[in-house]
């Protein structure tokens, strides 16, 4: 099998799930004729038809509302946000209607809301968002943010089959920059399971999405200085794989958390709190964070580079941590 991109892996996941299960439909802006703004749904309309690949008006709340209504009759809609930034437009529909349904009135909503997220592609302040924490704070939704083509395909399939609303963030920087050979046939990557991307004993670097690759780059540099970092890819942010996090930190006794989301209120703070609650006595140093600046995502390349974490920042912070 020829290696496929992260983007193609997502397309394959949708294609295969739609081919296997007529209850899977796709709804969103320009997902049909145009095949999606990034071509993630290219060819789906031709294969599955108008009833299953639904182009909508520019109405994010209506897209989410309709997907939810469709799920009440047993369908498994995939709703696309053309850019994940626009998920803010349907915040109410997602957090008040979709997320609360199962708890309040026993109504599961098996929908997947997916779309391109993340920066580093000069998308500017409205096309680069990492909105995971708005939703992590909302009980009732699962949140997935893969870093590899293999995971993107397997996690998307698992998300479609899940009975809960799943937010599936696709890092657009990775869309065409990563290629991987995928296994033939059907497979899933279960939600809620982290992956160890590199083993190490001196400190743990926790990350997810595109920053996993940046963390691995930093880990290579650290290794040259004799610091063996263990890099863990969270893959799913909700549910969070606490077991994998604690297991690694109990081994290395030091933890650095890296994410592309802005620092204040980011996932790193939540994980730090978990470590203090559950692994305080295992820690030999402070829990440190490398994250984006607490600003909107700026447009100019010089500014965006300053905004984003990079391997140098991770390297420097990890070295500081290793000294404890």
């Amino acid at each position, binding site marked *: 099998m020829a290696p496929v991109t992260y983007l193609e892996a997502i397309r394959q996941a949708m294609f295969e799930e739609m081919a296997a299960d007529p209850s899977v439909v796709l709804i969103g802006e320009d997902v049909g*004729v*145009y095949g999606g703004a990034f071509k993630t749904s290219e060819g789906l309309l031709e294969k599955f038809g108008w009833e*299953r690949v639904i182009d909508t008006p520019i109405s994010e709340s209506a897209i989410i509302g309709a997907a939810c209504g469709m799920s009440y009759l047993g369908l498994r809609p995939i709703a696309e946000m053309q850019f994940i930034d626009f998920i803010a437009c349907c915040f109410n529909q997602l957090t*008040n209607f979709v997320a609360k349904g199962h708890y309040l009135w026993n109504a*599961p909503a098996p929908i997947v809301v997916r779309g391109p997220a993340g920066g580093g592609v000069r998308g500017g302040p409205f096309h680069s968002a990492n909105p995971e924490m708005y939703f992590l704070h909302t009980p009732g939704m699962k949140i997935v943010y893969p870093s590899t083509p293999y995971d993107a395909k397997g996690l998307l399939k698992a998300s479609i089959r899940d009975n809960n609303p799943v937010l599936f963030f696709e890092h657009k920087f990775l869309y065409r920059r990563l290629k991987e050979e995928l296994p033939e046939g059907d497979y899933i990557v279960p939600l809620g399971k982290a992956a160890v991307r590199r083993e190490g004993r001196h400190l743990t670097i926790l990350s997810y999405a595109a920053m996993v690759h940046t963390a691995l780059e930093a880990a290579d540099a650290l290794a040259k200085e004799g610091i063996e970092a263990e890099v863990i890819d969270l893959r799913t942010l909700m549910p969070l794989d606490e077991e994998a996090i604690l297991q690694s930190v109990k081994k290395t006794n030091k933890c650095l958390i890296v994410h592309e989301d802005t620092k204040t209120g980011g996932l790193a703070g939540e994980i730090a709190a978990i470590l203090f609650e559950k692994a305080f006595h295992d820690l030999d140093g402070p829990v440190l964070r490398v994250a984006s600046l607490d600003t909107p995502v700026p447009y100019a390349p010089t500014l965006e580079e300053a905004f984003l974490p990079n391997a140098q920042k991770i390297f420097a912070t990890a070295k500081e941590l290793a000294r404890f």
Partner: protein
Amino acid sequence: MPASDPRSSAPLSRQQYLDLYYFMRLNREVEDTMTRLFRQNKIVGGLYSSLGQEAVSVGTAYALEKRDWMAPMIRNIGALLVKGVPPRDIFTQHMAKYTSPTKGKDGTSHFGDLENLHIVSPISMLGDLIPVMTGVAMAGRYLGQKLVAMTWIGDGGSSTGVFHEGLNLAASQKASFVLILENNQWAYSTPVRRQVPLENLADRAKAYGIASYIVDGNDVVAVYTTAREAVARARAGEGPILIEAKTFRRRGHAQHDPAEYVPAEQREFWEKRDPILLYEKFLTERKLLDAKGKKAIEERIATLLEAEREFAENSPMPPPEFAAEGVYCTGDNCHKIQPRWERPLEEVMPPKSSVEAVWTVAGFGRGKTSDSGGNAPIHFGDTQPHRADEPPPPADAKSAGGKSAGKSKAKAAPAKASARGKARR
């Protein structure tokens, strides 16, 4: 085409006339019982009244069939009763009991039933149900169920953004969806005249190119026959339909609100037009109801509600540990999610589902309105079946469309129209 006098055109059976009466009386008695419970401090939180609006809830829901779906709003207790919800569910909901449909997780009319009665629970944010019920209608069509989805919105809720998004999506999808715009003239303390610069809220339908009706919301027969026609048209594939029912909210926003902002003469005008009294007069004149029959109905309701209230009052509150349960569906053991197919599966699977890409879907963009001819004569995307002898539209159809729109700037609107309607030659 506003229904001028649907009463004369469509006779009801004696049973239908009496059903409407029974449910309106039941609606009012259920709410009166809850008002007493509220005063005894047995209701948790607020209590909302639909006093004087019973004809809207009952008359519209009565037009639905068992297979149809509905999502009531806060003042649609009558619709719940018509669809088959037992009064005990309404009492236990308001008392937050463990025996309630939400087991105490939510109150008031915020509950639903996906399996049997096909009711979607409302939330407090207004308008959200419109796209949700559009999705229900879309899924119903996809599964071949021939269902109609109905929800209600107030004069106040009709100004939300999601009202527009939802109704526009419903129109563009030609969804079998009926929206009851229950104009009770007050959004909390703000009169409709200060919310919307329209004489008739039904005019909102014109913006979506969908049909609409205006009906006297205190005349249950008019409401029912209008809703029946709308439901039939939606089921036949005519697309969404909006019914504005003009009525009046006789109590405050909720029990705490004495509604002193309502002018006395307005209140008096509508109190004289009480929908139940009007209907009793109608039934008596037509000899469909006499004192004996009325008494029998009253006794039937009293007996039922006594037992239902007893049940609710004697029910336990949910145990505290229940608070932590149920945020996520845990899988098939929790909910087995299975659509009910009423059409051949192969129709939606390749190769039969395979299509050539064209720009528009059947019947889209005709721009029909209730009084037809109100729209500008711009047709974009009127369906032309793709002819075999024509080359398929370019894969990059979008940018091609954009270019041609840019070329003919002089005639902005028609140029845009032709660009969008790429498949038309």
